[in-house]
């Protein structure tokens, strides 16, 4: 968590980062940018999934529908925030010549998506049968 807060300060202090170390090879920066964009697309897909649950499953009970939609949208928000945080930290690590930051986030996201998918399947089967 302190890593995250440290990253948060860096978001708004681009000058402090650009004073550190050396400018990395432009190809590394571009690769970092594409990774950031891939995470942003993941975030957009999660938010879009939330919209889809909200709009295309009207037969679900209100609480279930809104709960699932909010869970997906919340995961999208986390993913977007983490995307920019990870981008900043990678950029800084490359400038300093350090190892790239490691993260538990992909595993957590995968587990969360798995849990939501199972819940979704159970809910759809339950409501379809009932």
């Amino acid at each position, binding site marked *: 968590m302190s890593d995250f807060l440290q990253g948060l300060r860096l*978001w*708004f202090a*681009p000058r402090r980062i650009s004073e550190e170390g050396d*400018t*990395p090879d*432009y*190809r590394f*920066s*571009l*690769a*970092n*940018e*594409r990774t*950031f*964009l*891939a995470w*942003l*697309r993941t*975030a*957009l*897909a999660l*938010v*879009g999934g*939330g*919209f*889809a649950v*909200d*709009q295309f499953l009207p037969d679900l009970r209100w609480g279930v*529908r*809104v709960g699932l*939609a*909010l869970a997906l*949208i*919340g995961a*999208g*928000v986390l993913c*977007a*925030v983490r*995307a*920019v945080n990870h*981008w*900043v930290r990678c*950029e800084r690590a490359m400038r300093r010549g350090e190892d790239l930051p490691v993260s538990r986030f992909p595993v957590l996201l995968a587990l969360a998506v798995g849990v939501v998918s199972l819940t979704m399947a159970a809910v759809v089967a339950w409501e379809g049968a009932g």
Partner: protein
Amino acid sequence: MSGRGPGDGPAPARDPGLQPERTRLAWRRTTLTCTVVAVLAGRGALRSDPAAVGGAAAAVTAAVWLCFLAVAHRRMRSTAPPRPAALSHRAALAATGCVLGLALAGCLMAVIG
């Protein structure tokens, strides 16, 4: 000794790994994804029950989509040189803010609309 090594002569006119082009395509993919989500959001806004919620969501969605288009367009132009500069913090934060704006519109519609 007539072969051309990686360090010889002037810099090539384009990146041999097409890194800027791949980055531009990544921006394009992301813009498309953003468009799909914005269309879904617009569809939800049209169907929202209190019209005020729908209107607010539609306004947020339209603003966010235009903002994302502008950010992506600027960045795609700035990757035109063979060795483009790194993405600016401002652009990264703006793109993230657009995703958060769409999420906000979605929460509004899911809970109230």
